[in-house]
């Protein structure tokens, strides 16, 4: 989408924003990185917006909120949920950001290209609904829907919750995204199989903390895991308990605030499906305390910061769930 770069230039030169938060050219074509641009020259040189700009920019606004002036930011629909959640938590002032909503048809990832057997990729071009990929072994074409990031496969919404201006069309929530199908499949397994599944996934964790660092909800000034007395070491886990502990607590800390943007899974170098933990909490909250989507509006209370006198008892977990371990 060429209009995005144009818009970035326009905002900077027109004086509407003091800086622009966007995507900077990465080392390779498939990893554009979040970047702050203060001048038109920088934008001309480094700004990109293409099918691989999956990164969610909301979190970086927390730091920029302390800078003087207004930051302009480009937000895809799911990123706008994260921003609204952060505004709700008083981490970002709405008046300090100028939001340009960007319509999104799903972003692409390198993993999907590899899965499709495309190797030695040098560069790519966008051609309508397809990507034309130049590789060492010649050109090949892949449909955009086959090259999606895992987080985009079950898109929950194409609605941009809040914006100052819009590039492209405003969309709607996706009613049948099927994003809980995988969670439901796991719930139906026997506890033994579930335990084996999660041991297999979580034991790959190298505790690089990428999931924590990229997560918009994980934005505490001081993190519980940086405390040497937290019960887990800060380097690679020495015991399977540490992985369990780290991932349960991390998922719990963002429970009812997680907007399901899927960044944790996108950045995991070990390909752990971390979003399945967050989605389990979202699914439980939806089922037990009523439908709730974090970041969908400015005034509802998150489920864990709220209660009803008639809430179900914790024993419901013992009663409702299938087979016993």
């Amino acid at each position, binding site marked *: 989408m060429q209009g995005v770069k144009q818009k970035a230039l326009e905002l900077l030169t027109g004086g509407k924003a003091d800086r622009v938060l966007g995507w900077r050219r990465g080392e390779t074509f498939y990893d554009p990185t979040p970047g702050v641009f203060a001048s038109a020259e920088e934008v001309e040189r480094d700004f990109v917006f293409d099918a691989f700009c999956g990164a969610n920019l909301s979190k970086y606004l927390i730091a920029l909120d302390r800078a003087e002036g207004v930051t302009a930011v480009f937000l895809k629909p799911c990123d706008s949920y994260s921003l609204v959640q952060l505004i709700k938590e008083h981490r970002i002032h709405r008046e300090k950001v100028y939001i340009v909503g960007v319509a999104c048809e799903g972003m692409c990832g390198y993993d999907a290209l590899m899965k499709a057997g495309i190797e030695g990729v040098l560069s790519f071009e966008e051609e309508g609904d397809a990507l034309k990929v130049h590789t060492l072994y010649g050109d090949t074409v892949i449909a955009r829907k086959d090259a999606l990031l895992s987080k985009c496969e079950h898109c929950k919404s194409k609605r941009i919750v809040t914006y100052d201006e819009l590039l492209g069309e405003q969309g709607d929530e996706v009613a049948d995204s099927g994003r809980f199908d995988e969670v439901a499949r796991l719930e139906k397994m026997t*506890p033994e199989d579930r335990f084996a599944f999660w041991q297999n996934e979580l034991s790959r964790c190298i505790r690089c903390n990428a999931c924590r660092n990229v997560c918009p909800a994980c934005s505490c000034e001081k993190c519980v895991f940086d405390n040497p007395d937290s019960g887990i070491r800060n380097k690679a886990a020495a015991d399977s308990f540490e992985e369990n502990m780290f991932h349960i607590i991390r998922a719990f800390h963002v429970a009812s605030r997680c907007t399901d943007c899927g960044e944790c899974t996108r950045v995991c170098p070990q390909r752990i499906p971390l979003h399945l933990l967050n989605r389990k909490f979202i699914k439980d909250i939806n089922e037990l305390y009523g439908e709730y989507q974090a970041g969908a509006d400015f005034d509802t209370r998150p489920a864990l910061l709220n209660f009803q006198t008639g809430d179900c008892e914790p024993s419901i977990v013992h009663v409702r769930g299938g087979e*016993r*371990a």
Partner: protein
Amino acid sequence: MSVKTDWKPTIVAFCCNWCSYAGADLSGTNRLQYPANVKIIRIPCSCRLNPMFVLRAFQRGADGVILCGCHPGDCHYTTGNYYARRRMTLLFSMLDYLGIERDRTRVEWVSAAEGAKFAATMNEFVATVTALGENRRLEDLRCKA
């Protein structure tokens, strides 16, 4: 899982200061018996129970963790146990999702007048956990003697 006949589970009971701790005290003064392997940890309110405490208890060798607090509506701080209720529901559900035996965790509301209920709950919970055997899925071998 084979269970040694002389093996006794370690149970950690988090009790709220205002109701359940007094309830435990009452069961003691009434000379009601409950197993000695229940270790009570007093917390100011059931809401004080950080989910991390539960995991930490399992790490340090607990085989079962139970939270006791005031009945919903009777919280000394008015609403603490309502929040605790939601948190524990989600935490237990998550542990179950990860394949950890859900019968190792429980929440029970025990008032200061319910000494008998406290003893009965503990007897029942210890029996359940004894039947499950040792906690193997959420243990930290470095913390085992």
